[in-house]
């Protein structure tokens, strides 16, 4: 497949209630294979009817991806590790990747997602997690360096300029905004909280809504690893 530009936006609605709760990646792989088969037979065909990004009626159970067609994951341009080393998603190819946009001062939703990652690691220890902060004001390189001391090495915490983070987020359809609060803990960031699954070939396959059980994600990764 041809590598696409990074500014491609997801085509589908991101409403959580349209996302099937129980999906299997086997169905997605079936769609992939079908897509490839169609492509091989007739390269001139415009689009595979199988890989329609918008689930409709009977097809909804078979094509669960809320992302749309599997496609090369957008690059994360301009993001850096806490030690300021530039991040390159390609360096992680060969491993399944779960990507998240969150922030460390988030006491509830983001730690819950981190807890899910721990659950996935129990089943898939080679999974690489990429955690991009949407709060560079507080998640400075220094702060992230301290934070990652308590986390596994295969969690890649990234920050960057506000503009670089905004562009990276938009490429994945992630939205976020600063919200002032009455809380002693200061402002919060409201944000979409999906986990994005990227396979070992760098293809963006699925997004998981907040609260997806770790076992479900781990099962998908197991299917990918068997591939």
């Amino acid at each position, binding site marked *: 497949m041809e590598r696409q530009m990074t500014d491609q936006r997801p085509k589908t609605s991101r409403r959580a209630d349209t996302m099937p709760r129980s999906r299997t990646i086997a169905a997605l792989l079936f769609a992939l294979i079908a897509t490839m088969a169609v492509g091989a037979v007739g390269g001139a065909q415009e689009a595979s009817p199988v890989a329609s990004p918008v689930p409709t009626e009977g097809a909804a159970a078979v094509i669960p991806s809320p992302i749309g067609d599997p496609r090369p994951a957008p690059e994360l341009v301009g993001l850096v590790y806490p030690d300021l080393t530039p991040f390159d998603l390609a360096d992680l190819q060969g491993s399944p990747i779960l990507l998240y946009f969150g922030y460390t001062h988030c006491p*509830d939703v983001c*730690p819950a997602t981190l807890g899910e990652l721990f659950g996935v690691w129990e089943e898939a220890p080679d999974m690489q997690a990429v955690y991009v902060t949407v709060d560079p004001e507080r998640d400075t390189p220094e702060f992230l360096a301290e934070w990652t001391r308590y986390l596994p090495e295969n969690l890649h915490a990234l920050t960057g300029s506000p503009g670089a983070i905004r562009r990276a987020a938009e490429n994945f359809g992630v*939205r976020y905004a600063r919200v002032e609060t009455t*809380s002693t*803990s200061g402002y919060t960031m409201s944000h*979409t*909280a999906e986990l994005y699954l990227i396979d070992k070939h760098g293809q963006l396959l699925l997004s998981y809504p907040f*609260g*997806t059980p770790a076992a479900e994600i781990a099962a998908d990764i197991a299917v990918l690893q068997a591939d």
Partner: protein
Amino acid sequence: MSRSKRRMSMPGASAAVALSLTLGAVGAVAASDDDGSSEAMASAEPMASMAPGLYVQEAWTRESPMLDLAGAAYMVIHNTTDGDDALIGASSPVAEVVELHLSSMDDEGMMSMAQVQEIPIPAQADAVLKPGSYHIMLIGLLEPLTEGTDVEITLEFATAEPQTITAPVLAEPPMSAMDMDMDAMDDGMDDEEGDS
């Protein structure tokens, strides 16, 4: 997958934790009753036969190693009385400030969090504090919250007397707490385990 009713049962060590929490919480409630003799009865009797009140179960605190970051505590508060009540505040020796918060997702899939003045505990129902929903925020941690330790939290209610509960620090929820919203509003009083 399909559970007609959420039950207190859970596998392995989690079940033991939950059971001990149950008994611990019940003991704490009974001790605060004005009838001192109820304590011995409390640990042996099923909840349904106990005096109406607020009963806290499944309390836990998420591991939080950095003092600069807030911690969060979760639990289920059963209200077996015929009157509505509410959690209106909390305090803990591990945090300078304790607040009540609600995380929620809007129509566009954005998760946000807001401080709330109270968490309702309707009559004959439960208040469920869980990730992605109501929670107790521990701000200005005075010590790291380390797995294997316990956090004491004193809960203040609109009507009921305050209760001090113990919320063990865990790295992950004690059960599939993320997935319990569908049926967590069951009245919960008839699905006790370990009460025979």
